[in-house]
């Protein structure tokens, strides 16, 4: 047999294989979805078969990872154009930055029945750049004051419609009973831009201070930050739980669920956990108040937190169509309905669609619904005259992740008592100035 014949046979075989492969490829597409291991996403993963039934030919591969690891994975992959993911779960912080880098594909194939106008406007804005939606909201959150109705009653307190930090301080003092393991207030202390800084950035805004001023100068040494952090450290030292500097959302959730906290100010999504009898020992005693605002006046109307976990398609994905179909399914009204049927109304992903908050069944099942939507509706992350960046508890610039985390460390240091508040803030200012200078924002 000559070499030529061999080659020809080989080529023919190759062509045949290629044809078969492309034929099967058309019939079945596998998309890889990277997501966070939060319970709403885990629930979505459990319902995958519904999507695959409705979209024959598409199969879904899940990559479910802890938040920090997922962020590290998807950021690396999209920045290097690695093409490992077809759908990524990202937040309101990433969307504007990534869209600007041209890393995300605009979501324009979500289908006619998607009803984009039903999306809550502030959320939709947060995920759009120049009127193009770059990520579809899966669930969204703002901030609430969770408190124990029974402990408040014992102490003769009543949660006002709009509490101030003065009131919170007073309530923390009256409800604290450290000898019996009841702490007046539990707040985030674990360092990280999405951990303690999410809370503290928000608290500082309630005292009228931002991360950066109009000229991008860091503001950590301003009055607002000083007042906020001084009060925070003071309250936590006097009435907070031990080990507060390593408490994040989860640790506080455990504490609150154990009945150890009289108050907890955190992401509104906490409400569905502390009212769940399988997660909490005090499911019936939880009240929901608005987030407190600054002592004297309410400079930023109290609501200073907006976050939406959202699904986006990287530009590098080869399976745009299938990926958008998946996103359309996961963020649709039908999906909400599906979760309600299978898991009950209290478990549907909150905060993304107006229609959900007009649904009486949901309002009945979720006592925290009204407080959540009020908070989301009044949070406005748009840039203003004195705040050049997009975002409230974060600043949507690439440098913020690093600055937020490093500053968060300083705040944890102040909370643990190893440095004073003033020292921590001036360190924070130095760190932020150094980074902003390197980033070319300031001289």
């Amino acid at each position, binding site marked *: 047999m000559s070499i030529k014949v061999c080659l020809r046979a080989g080529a023919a075989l190759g062509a045949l294989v290629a044809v078969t492969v492309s034929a099967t490829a058309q019939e079945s597409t596998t998309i890889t979805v990277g997501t966070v291991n939060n319970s709403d996403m885990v629930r979505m993963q459990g319902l995958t078969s519904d999507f695959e039934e409705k979209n024959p030919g598409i199969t879904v591969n899940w990559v*479910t990872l802890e938040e920090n690891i997922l962020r590290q994975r998807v950021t*690396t992959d999209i920045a290097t154009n690695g093409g490992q993911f077809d759908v990524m779960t990202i937040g309101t912080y990433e969307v504007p930055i990534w869209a600007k880098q041209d890393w995300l594909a605009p979501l324009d194939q979500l289908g006619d029945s998607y009803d984009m106008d039903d999306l809550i406007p502030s959320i939709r804005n947060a995920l759009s750049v120049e009127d193009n939606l770059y990520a579809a909201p899966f669930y969204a959150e703002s901030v609430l004051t969770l408190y124990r109705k029974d402990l408040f009653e014992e102490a003769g307190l009543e949660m006002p419609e709009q509490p101030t930090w003065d009131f919170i301080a007073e309530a923390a003092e009256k409800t604290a009973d450290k000898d019996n393991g009841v702490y007046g207030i539990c707040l985030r202390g674990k360092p990280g831009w999405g951990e303690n800084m999410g809370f503290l950035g928000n608290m500082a805004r309630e005292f009228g201070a931002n991360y950066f001023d109009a000229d991008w100068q860091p503001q950590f040494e301003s009055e607002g930050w000083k007042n906020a952090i001084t009060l925070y450290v003071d309250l936590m030292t006097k009435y907070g739980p031990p080990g507060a500097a390593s408490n994040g959302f989860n640790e506080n*959730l*455990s504490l609150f669920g154990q009945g150890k906290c009289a108050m907890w100010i955190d992401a509104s999504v906490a409400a569905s956990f502390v009212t769940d009898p399988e997660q909490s020992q005090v499911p019936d005693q939880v009240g929901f108040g608005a987030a407190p605002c600054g002592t004297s006046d309410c400079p930023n109307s109290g609501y200073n937190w907006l976050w939406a976990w959202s699904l986006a398609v990287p530009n590098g994905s080869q399976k745009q169509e299938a990926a958008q179909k998946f996103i359309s399914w996961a963020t649709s009204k039908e999906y909400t309905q599906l979760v309600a049927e299978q898991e009950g109304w209290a478990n549907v992903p909150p905060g993304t669609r107006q229609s959900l908050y007009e649904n009486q069944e949901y309002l009945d099942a979720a006592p925290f619904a009204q407080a959540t939507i009020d908070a989301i509706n009044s949070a406005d992350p748009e840039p203003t005259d004195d705040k050049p960046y997009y975002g409230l508890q974060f600043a949507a610039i690439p440098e913020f992740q690093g600055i937020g985390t490093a500053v968060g460390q300083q705040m944890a240091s102040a909370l643990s008592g190893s440095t004073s508040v003033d020292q921590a803030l001036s360190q924070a200012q130095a760190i932020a100035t150094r980074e902003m200078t390197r980033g070319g924002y300031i001289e």
Partner: protein
Amino acid sequence: MARQVTKQRKIGMTVLAWAVGLLIFFPILWTFLTSFKTELTAISIPPQFMFFDWTTENYSTINSQANYFHFMANSIYLALGSTLLGLLFAIPAAWAMAFSPTPRTKDILLWMLSTKMLPAVGVYIPIYLLFINLGLLDSRFGLIVVLFLINLPIMVWMLYTYFKEIPVDILEAARMDGASLRQEITQVLTPMAVPGIASTVLLNVILAWNEAFWTLNLTTTDAAPLTAFIASYSSPQGNFYAKLSAASMLAIAPILVVGWFSQKQLVRGLTFGAVK
């Protein structure tokens, strides 16, 4: 009298040894127990030691969420693959260093160890880019090569130390008895080398199994091992101690079982009692 003293001494030593052993083992025991608790029992105060309602609910929840066996198969594949590849390279090298040492041998050994000094995070992005260009992202082959390379220095070291213990006198004695080179290798050296190789294999399987930076950051789905499985259970929203414990037990159980079964060989292998 003397017997009495030894017996008392033995009991005393036994109590002490068991106390130390249990103390060191306690975190794992606690994880094991917690994996059978509900989330609320897991954080109850005071902690429940044994007397709670045992439940396997955590294991079934985890099983319904992730295909554990896929991750486990990858872990086995990566650990064995990288170790076999490592043996292929390391045995000849260690052998040569142990039996025909040159003045530079020690330098080479130390240099090998120094290749482990570049912190993985420092080269993360360059390696990621390299993997994209080579098309090796999320491939088991790519990871096997990486794991092989990062553990190769340790393998050479371990084998070298073991081989070094094999007394050269025995070789000479065999030669005096007229053994051929082949007989020398198969009948004299191999039996003495096997225990050392066995414990090196075990050590490397453990190191490869536990490697959590590259295995996590260079895989997505196809090649993802148990470290990625754990990463989907470490600190999710909500109470998670019980589920984390169950996932941890699942992740360490295979290697723990293998390790325990082979530890007798391991210790025997390291002692060379027969030859000394």
